[in-house]
């Protein structure tokens, strides 16, 4: 009797010793054989399953399964632990312990038990009816308005702190799943996409292109103050000069050489376009560097799902030009 590999956590049985050296004669035979073998395997699983200690239940005996032995990949990355907030760091440094507070507290003003937070709460700032004037108070000042402003300031400070805490959490990758920070536009699930920053030159190029996309090619449009003239010159064809000076190699020769090189390289195999390979390599390096710069400090930046490897793999090596028709 062959040994079966049994994974109880997954309720799986595997028979590694069976091999079909010749394909079975007919389909029905194959099915029958499979069923037979399957029955033996399932019996083996049931043998181990039914001897586990079980608790009785109205529906049937319940057993506790061991954890599965076959390791399968996760579907989402492990959640990062919550980043400590500013207050938590401070409390840890000073040794301040957190004490549990009750929902109701005694209000000295009314002499009743009121709830701590919410409607009609204890020690509410707004409930104070009389504020006694102090020696250092200015005569025209409204103390109630002053109190309201101070509270507003406190609330704003808290919002600022909360934003700071969330930014810290986002930096270490532990942003809570239901929160999005608007300006950086991070997606809620899935990995971060590096935000694209458009530079001044790019914008100028695009603006120029848009401006020239008129019926007259942008020639008669009024230019705004400060706008640079269009980059593209009117001429689209370059003619060789009629009389040539003796330079390094005559322009006509250069021209024909260029055309010939292109033709030859198209029809030859195994020519590596060194220039193209170098630029491709540089681009990937640049992208990697850019993505590593503004990212978290965890070492998993290298192990993050690398989309690029899938895309570049079939193209790297011999360039397209090396293939013959």
């Amino acid at each position: 009797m062959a040994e079966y590999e049994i994974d109880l956590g997954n309720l799986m049985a595997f028979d590694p010793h069976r091999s079909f050296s010749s394909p079975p004669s007919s389909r029905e035979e194959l099915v029958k054989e499979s069923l037979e073998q399957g029955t033996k395997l399932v019996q083996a699983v049931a043998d181990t399953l039914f001897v586990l200690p079980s608790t009785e239940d109205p529906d049937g005996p319940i057993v506790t399964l061991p954890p599965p032995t076959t390791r399968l990949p996760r579907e989402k990355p492990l959640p990062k632990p919550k980043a400590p907030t500013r207050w938590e760091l401070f409390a840890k440094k000073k040794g301040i312990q957190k004490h549990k507070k009750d929902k109701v507290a005694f209000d000295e003003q009314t002499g009743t038990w009121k709830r701590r937070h919410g409607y009609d709460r204890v020690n509410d700032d707004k409930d104070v009816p009389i504020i006694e004037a102090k020696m250092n108070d200015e005569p025209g000042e409204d103390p109630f308005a002053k109190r309201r402003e101070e509270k507003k300031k406190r609330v704003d400070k808290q919002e600022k702190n909360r934003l700071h805490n969330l930014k810290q959490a986002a930096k270490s990758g532990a942003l809570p799943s239901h929160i999005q920070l608007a300006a950086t536009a991070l997606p809620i699930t899935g990995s971060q996409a590096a935000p694209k920053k458009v530079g001044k030159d790019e914008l100028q190029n695009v603006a120029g292109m848009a401006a020239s996309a008129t019926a007259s090619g942008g020639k008669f449009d009024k230019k705004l103050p400060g706008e640079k003239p269009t980059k593209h010159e009117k001429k689209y064809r370059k003619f060789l000069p009629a009389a040539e000076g003796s330079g390094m190699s005559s322009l006509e020769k250069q021209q024909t050489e260029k055309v010939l090189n292109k033709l030859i390289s198209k029809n030859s195999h195994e020519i590596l376009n060194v220039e193209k390979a170098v630029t491709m390599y540089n681009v990937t390096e640049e992208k990697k560097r850019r993505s590593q710069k503004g990212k978290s400090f965890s070492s998993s930046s290298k192990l993050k799902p690398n989309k690029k490897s899938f895309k570049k793999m079939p193209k790297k090596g011999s360039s397209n030009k090396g293939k013959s028709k």
Partner: protein
Amino acid sequence: MMRIKTPTKKRIKRELDKRAPKLIETGKKTLILHGTKTSNVLNAVLAEIYHLKRDNAIKYTKKNDNVRPFESGGETSLEFFSLKTDCSLFVLGTHSKKRPNNLVLGRTYDHHLYDLVEVGVENFKSTESFSYDKKLAPHIGSKPLFAFIGEGFESVEELKHLKEVLLDLFRGEVVKNLNLAGIDRVYLCTAMSPTKVFFTQCAIRLKKSGTTVPRIELVEVGPSMDFVVRRHRLPDEGVKKQAMKTAPESTKKKEKNVKGDVIEGKVGKIYIPDQKVGSVPLPNRAKGVKRERREAKMNNEAHEPAEKKQKEDSD
């Protein structure tokens, strides 16, 4: 300036939290869709798989032209769908002359493509074509058993990969406690050759045997088909390492309502719900109650025709 965006409704927040990565993962959802062209066979196969995984599968009905998982740019649609539906497994069915009845089984990690297995379906027989005693039919959502036969599953790389993907696809949730009476299905996979796998679903019939372990009998029930392995793509090494990371050992769960260890020893608090002394139904109806009822009945008959009285207690 940055703004904190949170969902205004709590329901949305709960849904988002359900999709957040968890320490210990619950079942993976499957997305079933098809590409440019499908055949009748393939439609039936996709429908069957959807029925097998009813609770945690989503089936798309439209055709998707731009889904080509094996090409470099063709997976963006799939990743988008996976993100939208929160599915980490997908089954894509396509039919072409070069690859007839093609099924691509794939997994995603962090909503990016993790690995793929492409199989062709041959000799498909649907559930309706099998005749069996309907009482044995496996219930939807029951935890299946798996039986893999053949050394090919260990030696041939494609079959190893296929085994892993099939296990992941049909496993369902990983449960700690299992009800032994609820074991009623098994997926049988036989490696007939290094490229062909015979796959079928059987119902389990437990028969009396002398010992506590019942005797197993298998009855072929569900869809049966041959998988011809065509292409496959293994996961990227770095991604694989990250995906196989297991959760760290969980800290001991905090025991509630227990404290005080030094002087008194372990002290626990027990909360008893309110005892409703007045409204507890008494087992024997007091005699006085019966008399009152009789009197009331007599009084009522004097005033008006006797109305139907509700029975107080069943005796």
